[in-house]
């Protein structure tokens, strides 16, 4: 657990934790608002957003990608709303029609452009590559205190840390508004809270978290991070504050455990190499959710518990 750990494992674990937390925070509200699948839609349209940003700027860099993905999320939300209103179609199907079409357009654009020179391919976008985000320049724990060395940290870490801090600040600042408008939108409007704008803001924040996490874990596993920790937390408590606390705990736990299992698990079984850390993080978060479904103290709907004896 010395130099090698700092070089190879510290940054991926940190990135995993930050990504999981950044996704879990908005996820809490999405779940309570029954908008969990917005996370699904967002994570699929991240791909076209990034491709378009790449086509417009010609470079792979963080800010245009973030903007592109946030833009794509807004376009998707707008289109879903248009299809829902104009066609009188239920939200789920409207979502399904819009985000799959946008995803297909993204794949097509990607195939049509020559992106062989840059690191942007569909599989990477879908699966992520947490293991590659290493800090080879580090010489041990003391490097953490050396400003010169810190400058060599992977960009992804700084990016996800910034986004995570941004999400945390937004959650704290808008806490009261979010809480009121999530549970009683009509009351929130009566109080003068701009509930519609707040809902849109939540979706955009989720999109930003998704695209930052997308770097590390790929666009599909982001869905597990949006939904599993908050859903498990929802079964643990009836209080929003504690639910958010639980979701952060679960998110951290799945990131750490998932990374360790992916890196060292195969060795324990005598196999060579490692498996996808991002996939393992999703799997661990699923196991946590499964345990919460079986044993969580508040797992049943009110009134159902006694009748079914569950």
């Amino acid at each position, binding site marked *: 657990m010395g130099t090698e750990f700092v070089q190879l494992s510290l940054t991926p674990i940190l990135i995993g934790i930050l990504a999981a937390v950044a996704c879990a925070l908005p996820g809490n509200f999405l779940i309570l608002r029954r908008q969990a699948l917005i996370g*699904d839609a967002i994570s699929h349209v991240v791909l076209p957003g990034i491709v378009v940003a790449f086509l417009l700027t010609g470079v792979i860099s963080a800010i245009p990608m973030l903007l592109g993905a946030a833009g794509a999320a807004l376009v998707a939300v707008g289109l879903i709303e248009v299809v829902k209103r*104009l066609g*009188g179609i239920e939200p*789920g199907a409207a979502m399904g029609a819009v985000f799959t079409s946008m995803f297909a357009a993204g794949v*097509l654009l990607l*195939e049509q452009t020559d992106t062989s020179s840059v690191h942007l391919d569909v599989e990477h976008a879908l699966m992520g590559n947490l293991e590659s985000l290493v800090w080879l320049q580090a010489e041990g724990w003391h490097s953490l205190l050396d400003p010169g060395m810190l400058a060599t940290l992977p960009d992804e870490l700084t990016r996800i840390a910034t986004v995570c801090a941004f999400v945390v600040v937004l959650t704290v600042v808008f806490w009261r508004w979010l809480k009121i408008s999530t549970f009683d939108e009509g009351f929130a409007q009566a109080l003068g809270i701009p509930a519609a704008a707040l809902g849109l803001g939540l979706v955009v924040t989720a999109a930003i978290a998704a695209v930052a996490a997308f770097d590390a874990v790929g666009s599909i596993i982001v*869905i597990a991070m949006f939904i599993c920790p908050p859903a498990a937390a929802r079964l643990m408590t009836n209080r929003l504050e504690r639910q958010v606390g639980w979701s952060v705990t679960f998110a951290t736990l799945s990131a750490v455990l998932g990374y360790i299992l992916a890196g060292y698990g195969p060795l324990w079984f005598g196999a060579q190499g490692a498996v996808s850390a991002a996939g393992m993080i999703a799997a661990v978060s699923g196991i946590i959710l499964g345990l919460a479904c079986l044993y969580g103290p508040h*797992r049943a709907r*009110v009134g159902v518990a006694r009748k079914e004896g*569950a």
Partner: protein
Amino acid sequence: MNLFVDALFLQAGYNAALVAIGAGLLGFAAGASGTFPFLRKRALIADAVAHATLPGVGLAFVVMVGFGGDGRNLVGLIAGSAVTAWIGLLLIEWISRRTRLAEDAAIGAVLGVFFGVGIVLLTVIQTMSAGRQAGLESFLLGSTAGMLFQDATVIAIGGSLAVLLTWLMRRPMTLVAFDSDYAAALGYDVRRIDLLMMGLVMAVAVIGLKLVGLILIVAMLIIPAVAARFWTDRSTSMIWIAGGIGGASGYLGAVLSASAPAMPTGPIIVLVAAAIFMFSLLLAPDRGVLAALFRHRGFQTRVHRRQGLLALAARHPIREAYTLRLLAREGLVRPDGVPTDAGRAQAAKVTRDERRWDVAREIYQDAGLTGRYDGLTPIEDVFTADEIAEFDRQLGPPVTVRGD
């Protein structure tokens, strides 16, 4: 262009023809079996089911290689993916029934977690037997390059079975989709029918995996049904329309992708379906946006015309510009707002019909017929000529009004 025409008539080579036929059949099956989940408002379960096939593909590969077989045997991979997709389906059902999590959270959780496990298995396979696993990644986005006759046969047989089952079970599935409580009261096992509905979706998803990939098969299950909804109000015809739309987009998409380079089949098929959906959304009769716009305009015109005529009858000046334009265009008023003879006659008719309605309301006190009064429906559409003659008799003959 020539290449496109060739491909359209299956003249662009054996493989292209095979892909086009396979995609067409798959599209038909996907559209037809996607109809009822959409009507049940659970279209997105298809998304979770499709993603949940990935670990099955990986597991089946590992097992088949473990037994010394060919890891890429399509039937084996399909069987494996069906198993995990079914487990995912049951988990969604279990989570939303037994815990307080809503169905959307269950869908998202199953989707993300199963896909994650699938990715883990794919990386395991990569370390397991390097080189031979090439091609499993193509299940993500589909590939048509190595399509065999066997693959087309699997699609044809599986797809026809799915369509046949959808058609046979259309009555119970329609009942459950529109009123599950009523279906339960009639003695149908709603849970089983729901599972069957989703099982059909799953079946189509697994047979379509190799061709369009597990992410885009979702689109083929949802978009044709959504598009078909614009063209009909009957669930039985919707099955066939959705199937037709799906089949057309599958066939056209495969043809388009065969006729130009760098056109991946899966995305093109989805985009063709999306184009048909856009077309339906805008132009479908009755439910389309354009039809709604025309209906709105027509309604607006009738309201303005009637208000204008009533104002003429009451000798009020008309200040609303649109009303004036409307009446002037029909020759009912002169541009300065003074009614022409035709206008006076029409105004008198509107006022007389108002009086007739007053009488009708006294005679028929139940709301059945008089409830249809909305100021726009002509009285002749509601009552027979005899009845109207009776109203006129009660109203009495016209009288001369003194004064002005």
